[in-house]
């Protein structure tokens, strides 16, 4: 069907995932998979003509859908940041992801850039990545050899490095939805509001128990402070099982500072990033605190009304 060797600068745009996988199984090592192109075309700005070939995913409709399947949010890899920002379902169930998407680049970038591209590009500063990790997202990778599902935290292995093999395609992002009360916060620190590559980002997602007092699970994930986006597990361990009003915000935020080892770069020094990580952790906890109190007061007044 396809020749063994790649003709010079071939351009593939398949309608079916299966065809894309066939192409990857033959030319995966040489070809560039292109989604929105907002990272790839910057990276290859002055050497576009050196790219051996392109596999364009734009015609694969099923990769562009956001849907709820029983207890999971299923997001196609070609869903754009603008779609994430505007989707009512994402706003309702995954507000931290919605806010992270709204903070990306500019309207021009959000309209083209995709969640799959953001993940596979694997920048330590990738804006969606801490939010995806904090929600416990899983990625579905397909190849002609079958399907693999990996947790977000195991996908990234270094700056711009992932476990994705040349013949594999990221097709879906799956995020568990639960009936517990979930509170979340998203903070991005950059040099300016638009088009800023993040200096530090933080996504905090807290799952409360049925009584809405006890913390069932908490995930604190940061971007731009390590070779990959990271979860600070020590914070989650310290929060789990505690009552919300017993938390020591200072102590938790100190962990955010202590458990990261960022580097100096053009966007900020190591010391600055550590300071900022602590400050934004306090902000995130305070934001959740006021949301939690509102929620708690509502519950009490509802009970009195009965």
């Amino acid at each position: 069907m396809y020749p063994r060797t790649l003709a010079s600068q071939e351009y593939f745009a398949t309608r079916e995932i299966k065809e894309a996988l066939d192409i990857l199984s033959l030319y995966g090592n040489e070809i560039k998979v292109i989604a929105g192109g907002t990272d790839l075309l910057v990276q290859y700005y002055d050497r576009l003509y050196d790219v051996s070939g392109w596999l364009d995913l734009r015609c694969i409709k099923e990769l562009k859908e956001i849907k709820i399947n029983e207890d999971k949010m299923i997001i196609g890899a070609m869903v754009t940041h603008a779609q994430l920002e505007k989707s009512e379902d994402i706003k309702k169930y995954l507000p931290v992801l919605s806010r992270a998407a709204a903070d990306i680049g500019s309207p021009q970038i959000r309209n083209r850039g995709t969640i799959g591209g953001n993940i596979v590009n694997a920048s330590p500063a990738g804006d969606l990545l801490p939010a995806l990790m904090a929600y416990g997202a899983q990625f579905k990778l397909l190849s002609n050899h079958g399907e693999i599902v990996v947790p977000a935290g195991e996908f990234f292995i270094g700056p711009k490095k992932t476990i994705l093999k040349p013949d594999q395609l990221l097709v879906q992002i799956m995020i568990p939805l639960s009936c517990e009360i979930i509170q979340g916060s998203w903070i991005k620190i950059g040099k300016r509001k638009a088009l800023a590559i993040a200096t530090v980002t933080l996504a905090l997602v807290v799952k409360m128990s049925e009584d809405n007092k006890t913390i069932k699970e908490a995930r604190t994930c940061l971007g731009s402070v390590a070779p990959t986006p990271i979860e600070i597990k020590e914070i989650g361990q310290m929060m789990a099982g505690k009552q919300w009003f017993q938390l020591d915000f200072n102590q938790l935020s100190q962990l955010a500072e202590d458990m990261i080892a960022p580097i100096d770069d053009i966007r900020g020094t190591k010391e600055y990033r550590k300071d900022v990580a602590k400050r934004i952790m306090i902000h995130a906890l305070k934001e959740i605190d006021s949301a939690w109190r509102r929620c708690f007061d509502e519950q009490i007044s509802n009970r009195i009304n009965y």
Partner: protein
Amino acid sequence: MSKLVIELIINGNKRKIETSPSTRLLDLLRDDLHLTGTKEGCGKGECGACTVIMNGELVASCLVLAPQAEGAVITTIEGIGSGDHLDPIQEAFIETGAVQCGFCTPGMILAAKKLLEENSHPNENDIKRGISGNLCRCTGYQKIFDAIKLAANRLEEEERGGDKKND
């Protein structure tokens, strides 16, 4: 270098063009179609000078490969207003002095067009967010905000006028 032919609708006209897999939409517009109103600033999606409207969405044409635009409907600055009739947004930019060197203007006007289509009464924050992907190094932006507000008012008046005529 392999060649391919793409079809797209630019400013209402169907065009069939031979291009290559690594040609950017920006180069297709400027070099092949001679629509030089679209500018190249940074070439990396940060300045917005190359902004066009593609399938109803604002995009940076320097970050789109020509074959990705196969079948697309594209509006460039040449598609706004006509030879002897300016769009109210263009008029407002001239009146308020929102044009200095002019290099960002085509992108700014397309961003403003898209913003006003989605939100006919933008406040200052909406305007800032709407044109956040477009840099201007001359005006300091204030006159651009003024132009967009003026255009919004004009468009509303026009609409009201239109309603009256319909009554």
